[in-house]
């Protein structure tokens, strides 16, 4: 009996070893395949035509980023991004369908065709251009340092050293903090959040010392929640956000750019901008 047990045990340890090896092999294989997968382009019918046939433009956005994109009192997607999306869809002659999800999964959502376009304040960067195609910028955002109202120690990014800094996971701001600012000003801790509200909440309760974000995004959240926070100093950087679509869909990109230009021309764009930010767009 005892003998048998030992044999069994041996058998199991072999099995474990085999499984482990198999797993590692899969891991290796996938690692290699991945590099080509991201460059793969859309196959089959033209995406613009697909959208028109389908009758809906599927737009990916966060849905938690006031005043850009959020659920309004009627539980409908609302905000600057939403209005731009609706206007674009109207000009394409289709309905708009919103798919809301965390920003960190936005690129994956687009690649896996969960939606046709990302209209969610996605800043145009060289890194992202390798993954996706962007339209012409549809908005410029100034990013500022935000701290608690009573905080007078942190006046600019130079004061970040040794502090806890919050930022949205997978955002362009995170990349900026990690790859540009961190080596420049010295060690600070980066805390990542899935949306803007939670990062501001943690800032308000003092669990982080500062965050960086743009003023437009801040205003409604602060007003609604009564957060005691303020923006300080000069803008850290200016970001231009564009509409992101999967690579290799030239006709859709052209069409979107044309409609964006038309919107700016005929004043619709200005109307939407003033509606959400209470001031005229600076160009």
């Amino acid at each position, binding site marked *: 009996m005892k003998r048998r047990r030992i044999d069994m045990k041996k058998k199991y340890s072999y099995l*474990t070893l085999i499984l482990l090896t198999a*797993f*590692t092999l*899969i*891991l*290796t294989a*996938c*690692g*290699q*395949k*991945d*590099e080509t997968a*991201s460059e793969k382009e859309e196959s089959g019918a033209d995406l613009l035509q697909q959208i028109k046939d389908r009758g809906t433009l599927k737009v990916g956005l966060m849905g938690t980023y006031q005043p850009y994109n959020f659920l309004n009192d009627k539980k409908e997607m609302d905000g600057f991004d939403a209005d731009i999306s609706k206007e674009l869809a109207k000009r394409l002659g289709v309905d708009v369908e919103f798919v809301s999800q965390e920003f*960190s999964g936005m*690129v*994956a959502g687009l690649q896996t065709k969960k939606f046709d376009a990302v209209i969610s304040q996605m800043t145009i960067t060289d*890194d992202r251009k*390798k*993954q996706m195609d962007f339209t012409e910028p549809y908005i410029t955002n100034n990013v500022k340092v935000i701290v608690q109202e009573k905080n007078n120690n942190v006046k600019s990014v130079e004061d970040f050293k040794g502090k806890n800094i*919050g930022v949205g*996971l*997978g955002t362009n701001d*995170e*990349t900026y903090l*990690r790859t540009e600012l961190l080596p420049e000003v010295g060690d600070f801790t980066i*805390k*990542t*959040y*899935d949306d803007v509200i*939670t990062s501001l*909440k*943690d800032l308000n*309760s*003092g*669990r982080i010392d500062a965050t960086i974000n743009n003023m437009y995004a801040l205003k409604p959240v602060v007003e609604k929640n009564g957060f005691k926070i303020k923006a300080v100093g000069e803008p850290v950087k200016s970001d231009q956000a564009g509409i992101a679509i999967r690579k290799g869909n030239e006709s859709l990109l052209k069409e979107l750019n044309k409609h964006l230009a038309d919107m700016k021309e005929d004043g619709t764009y200005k109307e939407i901008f003033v509606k959400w930010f209470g001031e005229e767009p600076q160009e």
Partner: protein
Amino acid sequence: MDVIWTNLPFLLKGAYYTLLITIISMFFGSIIAVIVAVARLKGNKFIRWIARAYVSIIRGTPTLVQIIIVYYGLADYGLNLQPLTAAYIALSISIGAYLSETLRGAIQSIPKGQYEAAYASGMSPYQTMRRIVFPQAIRVAIPPAGNTFIGMLKETSLVSVITVTELLRSAQLLIAQYYVYMPFYLAIALMYWIMSTGFSFVLERIEKRLSIYD
């Protein structure tokens, strides 16, 4: 594959937090479980009711919701817990409820005759519990408790929402940097698997050691 090797230290640090949170929550969760299990079996009506309500509420709500309540919810009332502390508290409370049920069943599986024999030999109820019932009950409870612990190891991934950079979040951070998914997710899957296999191994050893009376 290279991206995994160059970022392995980063992922291992995430795995360290995953293990740390699991072990600390397991420890405090077990203490809660013992208290609640005994309260449900031996307490007066009021204590029993409280214990039942606790188990019912915790088992009936998602762990993610509990974590967010402890971290963001309490902050509304001025209680600002650090992310790790909040994770320990939320997960200990959560695992305590599941474990207490396991333990209650195990305690109930010890025949009445054993209590009677212990009392007859002059032991107090406390001594009976500690010397006679618990040692046997724990052995019965280990396999199902093992399930709970391993479940717990994986549930630590939920604390990524409260800015703890555990294993899942480390992978997400790397993905946000490299835009490749599969290698990172497979790597952390493998790491989770190795860790839970380690847990099963340890539990198996404990079970063997406790079965010397058989």
